[in-house]
């Protein structure tokens, strides 16, 4: 079965026998985008979080057939080294990662949150960012999320002025 979608701004098609294959496997093993991580495989830890049409989804629990015609963004497409997304910039400034394995999922979840709630409170963060970090970098992440909101607000103001 052929499934076509746009991923990080590039049109891609995959031929796949099982249309229920998790999108995560396609992204990592067929498209060789290794930034998105496999954690628990049951939509519990959030390491595999990506965006589909702007919404955060757990790609381990998302059949590739649902990706047909969709706009997908992974951590590789969120920003670049030269032009990082405000969330990535904030993560660098606050030196958030320890082992780093879960961080792409957290950053994707945070980027999705800031689109919905541009200036999240601690309560918004607690409710919406429910990923798991075994290094327990939650304190630094919380600071980085607030910082990202600040950076994003500033860049929006610059664009609008």
């Amino acid at each position, binding site marked *: 079965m052929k499934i076509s979608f746009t991923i990080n701004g590039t049109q891609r098609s995959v031929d796949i026998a099982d249309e*229920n294959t998790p999108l995560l496997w396609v992204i990592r093993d067929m498209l060789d985008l290794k930034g998105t991580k496999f954690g628990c495989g049951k*939509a519990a830890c959030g390491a595999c979080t990506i965006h589909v049409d702007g*919404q*955060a989804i*757990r790609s*381990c*629990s998302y059949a590739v057939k649902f990706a047909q015609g969709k706009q997908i963004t992974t951590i590789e497409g969120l920003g670049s080294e030269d032009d990082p997304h405000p969330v990535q910039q904030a993560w660098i400034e606050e030196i958030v990662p320890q082992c780093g394995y879960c961080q792409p999922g957290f950053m994707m*979840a945070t980027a999705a*949150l800031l689109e919905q709630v541009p200036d999240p409170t601690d309560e918004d963060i607690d409710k919406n960012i429910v990923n798991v970090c075994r290094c327990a970098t939650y304190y630094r992440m919380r600071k980085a999320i607030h910082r990202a909101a600040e950076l994003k607000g500033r860049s929006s103001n610059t664009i609008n002025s």
Partner: protein
Amino acid sequence: MKRQTILLFTSALLIVGVLASNFTIGNAAYTTISNATFDAKVNEGNFNKMMDVLTHKRCVNCHPSDNIPKQGEDSHPHYFGMARGEDNHGYKATSCNTCHQSENNNYSGVPGAPEWSLAPASMMWEGLTRIEIAQSMMDPERNGARTPDETMHHLTEHELVLWAWEPGLNAEGVPREKPPVPKDEYIKAVKQWFADGAIIPESK
């Protein structure tokens, strides 16, 4: 002739009075019951079959009374602090659809169906008796302003309701428990219960 008709009608009312004396009407505006054929035992049987399903965890897990969805065969509170949110669909950036799609995912063990969502807060069933659930279900103030006919169609046709018989595998690859009544038998019982006037047996 007129006198005979009145006599017949009065007799019929008396018979129905005896047959239906142990019942309350679920919704006074909806009584299409053919009174002459009403059978209290059959009605109670249909009611119980319907309620065997509607009180099952596959239904009640998403009709919580504390705004927190339940999961699993033990109906534990949904992990990750998930709750109703503003629109019965979780939070703005972490909603039901962050993980649940329009069908079951047997790779991850995450269940799914069209319109995956909590039932609205007015439809809290968790902790209610069968009779209280039926009263809630027939009350337009609490059932989303559905007519009895709409309620019947919802209960027998909506994909999210019928998902209960195709609940997929859990994260350990074990099939989820289905309601104790086969789907066809449930649908037949629900339709008959409504056709008989949606009469709720009294508490015993």
